[in-house]
């Protein structure tokens, strides 16, 4: 059935893909293994995927600082949940009317959305506006509002989905039956559009979960609002940011702070949830990339 050269090619393809897969996970493995290596081995051999000696001092130390870490986790969860649900709501509310062919002014509004993808004001004007007009600095909303809440791209993607997948006659039949527009949206359009809604939702959730820029720009004093990403970002420059009384007592008790390992342990803690749930949403995620990449 298959010729010899085809078989060889497919085997070579398999080998190359295996190697590439290794390249993709190797750095993550390095991170994880380094975090469970004893501090002495780290100081002697550096970060390595084959620890000379295992050790959990890094996690012990983090356990002392758990209040800050748990708090940051809470902020990540809160901003992801609030941001994603708000985002998906206003995106759907904007995309649906744009998909209705008879809406007067439809083209104008579609262009209004599209133009935001072409021309942007950039960081300085946005920063000035959010801080001076809306006084968003050092508030929870700084994690939600700037730049992430609604993307013109998502609106257009969703509109395209609605107009190709929701037959006009269904909407019209519902209107004749006296259904309101809101009812049509929530009872007919939304249930028929689960794939696109979950796709946009996933992408938005990932963006909120991973965001560190809003925290960097807008959270300067109230560090208790830090998400886990902001905490990581802060630890790059000030390694002692985690220390508190308990951790200090560890130092006082003459236990050395395992600073080399702690860096990697905290990064591991930040990525574990994503790596754990990723296999479950992998399919939807791939679908999202395909919809977003090929037809925008």
């Amino acid at each position, binding site marked *: 059935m298959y010729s010899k050269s085809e078989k060889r*090619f497919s085997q070579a393809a398999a080998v190359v893909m295996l190697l590439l897969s290794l390249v993709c996970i190797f750095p993550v493995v390095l991170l994880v293994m380094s975090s469970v290596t004893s501090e002495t081995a780290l100081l002697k*051999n550096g970060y390595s995927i084959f620890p000379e000696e295992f050790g959990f001092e890094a996690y012990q130390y983090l356990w002392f600082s758990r209040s800050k870490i748990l708090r940051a986790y809470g902020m990540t969860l809160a901003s992801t949940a609030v941001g994603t649900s708000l985002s998906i709501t206003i995106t759907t509310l*904007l995309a649906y009317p744009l998909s209705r062919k008879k809406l007067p002014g439809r083209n104008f509004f579609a262009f209004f959305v599209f133009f935001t993808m072409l021309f942007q004001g950039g960081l*300085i004007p946005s920063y000035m*506006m959010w801080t001076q007009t809306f006084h968003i600095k050092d508030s929870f909303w700084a994690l939600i*509002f700037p730049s992430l809440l609604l993307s013109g791209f998502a609106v257009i993607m969703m509109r395209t989905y609605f107009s190709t997948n929701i037959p006009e006659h269904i909407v019209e039949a519902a209107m004749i039956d006296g259904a309101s527009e809101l009812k049509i949206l929530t009872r007919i359009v939304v249930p028929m559009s689960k794939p696109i809604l979950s796709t946009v939702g996933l992408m938005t959730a990932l963006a909120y979960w991973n965001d560190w820029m809003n925290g960097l720009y807008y959270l300067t004093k109230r560090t208790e609002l830090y998400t886990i*990403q902001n905490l990581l970002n802060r630890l790059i420059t000030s390694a002692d940011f985690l220390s508190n009384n308990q951790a200090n007592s560890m130092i006082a008790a003459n236990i050395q702070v395992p600073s080399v390992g702690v860096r990697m342990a905290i990064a591991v803690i930040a990525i574990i949830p994503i790596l754990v749930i990723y296999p479950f949403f992998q399919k939807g*995620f*791939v679908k999202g990339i395909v919809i977003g990449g090929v037809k925008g």
Partner: protein
Amino acid sequence: MANMKRIKRFLPLYLMMVPGLVYLVVNNYIPLAGLQLAFKKFKYTAGIWGSPWVGFKNFAFLFKTKDAWMLFRNTIGYNLVFLVLNIILAVAVAILMNEIRSAWLRQVSQTVILIPFLLSYVVISYIVYAMFGQSNGMVNNSILKPLGVEGISWYTKPEYWPVILTMVQAWKSFGYNSIIYYATIIGFDRTLYEAAAVDGAGVWKRIVSITLPLLKPTVITLTLMSIGRMFYSDFGLFFQVPMNSGMLQKATTTIDTYVYRGLMETNDIGRAAAAGFLQSVLGFVTVLAANMFVRRVESDNALF
């Protein structure tokens, strides 16, 4: 009268759009007015509108320094390299993935190559540090030391960073791009391949004369999108990954990191605003020009 009725009928739909449109006005349109800062001497007490006009002074000031050349060279240079490299890598990986017989292996590799895409640049900067840190990094300790080479102080030597940043960028994004091409390839008409096989065309021949030509529209679309981002850079890549190291700035400063530093660190808002203005305007012009060009050559593939 008929008009009133029409408006009343569509009123609920207009009301639905209000939150989204308001957000776009606030987040996207109002900042456009803030671009005037490039022509003003910004005073915190006076705000954007109250600050005095200074004409093109900020631009003159920006271009008098060596910064300007470095900024644009780095931003565009990296983008060109990324553009070419990303296409080659992603198309190659997509084709390989398509040739794998084992469904299991295909599924696993498709899952694994997306992992880097899930990580934020803050996390990636920790990973890069684990590899390139001077005293604890893996490269210095596990690769150079056994070879008898003295450890390199990576974070103070800008000459290595074009390569490191390019690798990191490729590592993070090739999976994402490959999936797009792969999905396109699976959509191709199988009978074309079967006919070619009957005619005796080998694997290589089929790739060159069927897969690649059919992929052209996707390549054009993705290239157009990257060209539209030619004056933009990934702030995370250029700011987080080199850990904002001052000694690397020659190799790592792009328009985005320059604007950030001007605004947050050096309080040099005039020059930063001028650079930001050029980024916005040139970015806009580039998208329009690239799209116009494609529309003339291959009108089906234009973005708009």
